């Protein structure tokens, strides 16, 4: 077993900031990340290539004297107290820690509508990741739909990659967007960002109060039905990117016993969870964007390294980022119509092919899960669990290890400190 003073899970902005701050305070740090390079979702494929801020953080991470960065490393389950089971390409490992910082980020919220399982339909961030992974998009007609600022960022990226973005369909309405926009000039950095996006997007149509009702196609996506007020039309396209915001990846935290509220890990002012010695930072502790992730990560890093004074100056930045996030949340709150899109036959759980009608008769997530198999497949409810909390108000529960599908051989690895004696019955 390898042992470190501080282990950080996740190398997105929050994890990078946590590791750098802790190491620069003199602690010995290990970062475990499932991806191929540091960066997380927003700086996917290596932080250096993204922005100056990203590059600066990446350099500090790389140059950190006391940081061991382990990529392609999936944390699978807690072993004994203070120990994690991880899966790496070269096999399973157990990693010990004195203090743990969870920076496991978020995933997209996908909501079911007729046709959403057709090839050609992805999440918004999902399509972005595919393109960064080299999937060709040039000349393809794309509709970007759903909700939130990610729509604009991804649409801009799509255009740069040569896609023909037919339309950006934002479900929230103009009234909310304008109220939000009116506050933007107060924040010059964000205004600039918005203007740059606007320039890249050129004349791409952006419609607010507009959403996808249905995706059509025999084998592959051919068109979508869009709804805008009383208007309804069919828009031909080969690709639909549709996402409704983000949900925290709080499964690992839950298996460690951390309190969770509304899907996010509960943290105090010092980013500490309900479990002593375990901190959380970034989207896993609430969807608040990259600025908040960086501030929270740095605070968590300083606190874990025993340098609370260093964290002090970051509190105002975190508060501002979180205020901004609350405004975003209000601006992009999901409209009630989205809960009515699925028809009786629409599949809600893709792993186990469970239809909307089969779920609707159940009183709770657990009842639906046990009796319909919803959420029992390989994704263990990561997609359909979030969707059913929007559709039915259910709370997915009983997170059990492993937190991701894992080779059985990995689970045979036990803690070095803790092994059990079986009586010889056999």
């Amino acid at each position, binding site marked *: 077993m390898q042992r470190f003073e501080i282990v950080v899970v996740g190398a997105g902005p929050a994890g990078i900031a946590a590791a750098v701050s802790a190491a620069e305070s003199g602690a010995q740090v290990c970062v475990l990340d499932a991806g191929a390079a540091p960066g997380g979702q927003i700086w996917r494929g290596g932080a250096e290539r993204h922005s100056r801020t990203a590059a600066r953080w990446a350099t500090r991470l790389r140059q950190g004297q006391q940081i061991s960065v382990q990529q392609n490393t999936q944390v699978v389950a807690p072993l004994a107290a203070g120990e994690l089971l991880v899966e790496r390409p070269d096999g399973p490992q157990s990693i010990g820690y004195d203090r743990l910082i969870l920076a496991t980020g978020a995933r997209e919220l996908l909501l079911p509508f007729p046709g959403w399982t057709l090839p050609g339909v992805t999440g918004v961030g999902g399509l972005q990741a595919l393109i960064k992974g080299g999937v060709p998009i040039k000349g393809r007609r794309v509709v970007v739909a759903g909700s939130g600022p990610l729509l604009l960022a991804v649409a801009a990226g799509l255009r740069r990659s040569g896609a023909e973005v037919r339309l950006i369909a934002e479900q929230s309405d103009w009234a909310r967007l304008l109220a939000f926009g009116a506050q933007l000039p107060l924040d010059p950095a964000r205004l600039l960002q918005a203007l740059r996006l606007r320039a890249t997007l050129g004349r791409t149509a952006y419609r607010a109060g507009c959403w996808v009702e249905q995706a059509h196609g025999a084998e592959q996506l051919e068109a979508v039905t869009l709804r805008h007020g009383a208007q309804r039309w069919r828009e031909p396209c080969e690709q639909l990117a549709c996402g409704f915001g983000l949900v925290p990846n709080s499964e690992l935290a839950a298996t460690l016993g951390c309190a969770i509220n509304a899907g996010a890990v509960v943290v105090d002012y010092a980013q500490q969870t309900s479990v002593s010695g375990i901190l959380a930072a970034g989207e896993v502790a609430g969807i608040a964007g990259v600025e908040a992730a960086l501030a929270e990560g740095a605070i968590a890093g300083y606190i874990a390294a025993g340098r609370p004074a260093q964290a002090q100056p970051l509190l105002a930045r975190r508060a501002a980022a979180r205020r901004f996030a609350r405004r975003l949340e209000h601006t992009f709150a999901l409209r009630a119509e989205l809960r009515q899109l699925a028809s009786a036959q629409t599949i809600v759980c893709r792993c186990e092919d469970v239809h909307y009608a089969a779920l609707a008769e159940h009183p709770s997530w657990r009842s639906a899960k046990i009796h319909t198999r919803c959420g029992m497949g390989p994704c*263990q409810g990561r997609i359909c669990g979030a969707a059913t909390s929007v559709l039915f108000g259910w709370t997915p529960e009983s997170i059990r*290890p492993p937190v991701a599908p*894992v080779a059985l051989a990995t689970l045979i690895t*036990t803690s070095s400190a*803790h092994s059990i004696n079986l009586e010889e019955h056999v």
Partner: protein
Amino acid sequence: MRTHYDALIIGAGIVGAACASELAQAGLHVAVVEQEIVGGGTTAAGMGHIVVMDGSLPELVLTSYSQQLWAELLAERPADHEHLACGTLWVAADAEELAEAQAKQARYSAHGIASRLVAAAELYALEPLLRPGLAGGLLVPSDSVIYPPRSAALLIERARNHGAQVISAAVCALRPSGVLLADGQTLTAEAVILAGGIRSQALAPELPLRAKQGHLAITERYPHIIRQQLVELGYIKSAHASSGDSVAFNVQPRPTGQLLIGSSRQFDRSERSVDQAMLAQMLRRAVEYMPALAQLTVIRAWTGLRPATPDGLPLIGPAWQRPGVWLATGHEGLGITTALGTAKLLAAQLLGHSAPIPAAPYLPARFDKETAHG
């Protein structure tokens, strides 16, 4: 809502559901009170192996009788129970276990249960992934697999079709001729049937029940890589141990193509969390018997609490010193199988009919200390 019933059943696990179905079909006014969801207790955590076991004679009698009842029930709508007629292959590791398999075969045959000894060569023809060097096995074709929560729901549905009511409430105390619900309401009944699984003890602390925690792990889909439920012959010893922790090789094919891997037994672990060390031991045992399992992908592990009695047999019949209260609990690791037999035995006693199999070995009074001590 009426507040007086002929029979009031506490718990809609597989046992309570089977009792409800049986009593409602017999024409009684039945209520089932469940605090959570139908089939959501230990019933949702179990393997659903409908299996004949011969750890003792009464166990053999109850499991084989129950298996016949399952065969009748499953004949109606097998797919709804996610039934898989896979049989059991008891695996003998060495000559000693093979001798045990022969003895088992003789006992089964004496009770009219078909089974067939399998030599080493045939063992590998049946299950090529088993590790080399095993001695042989015993094939029991009549054993099969169901999905327990679905079966519980179907039994409840049948009870409802015969007029039973399902009441969503928690019973917080047993009262003379009835129960007190958590909301303060009292329901009365000629007979109160306690089928609360491991939680029965909260209402009747004198019951000799202990929790035996079991772990299970489920894989992604690998259709047809095993064909029968595979259990090591040492399993029965593991199941009947009255102390200590143990694991045994026990792997089940699901109709989805997934593999359900068991099993472990740990006493007095009341929490439901996964013990990573015990899970590892259990999986290691599985890999010892079937090395290829190490390569498969596991998507989830979980635990369940088996309600265990000191002699490993359930409590079926009148509760001692509690007039009007009947017990249907303590089924340890066989409650899915024995739920149907339990319901028949209980109904026969309640209605004064002759019992289909001898009732004495399962009567709760065997644990009444006062009569036992004179």
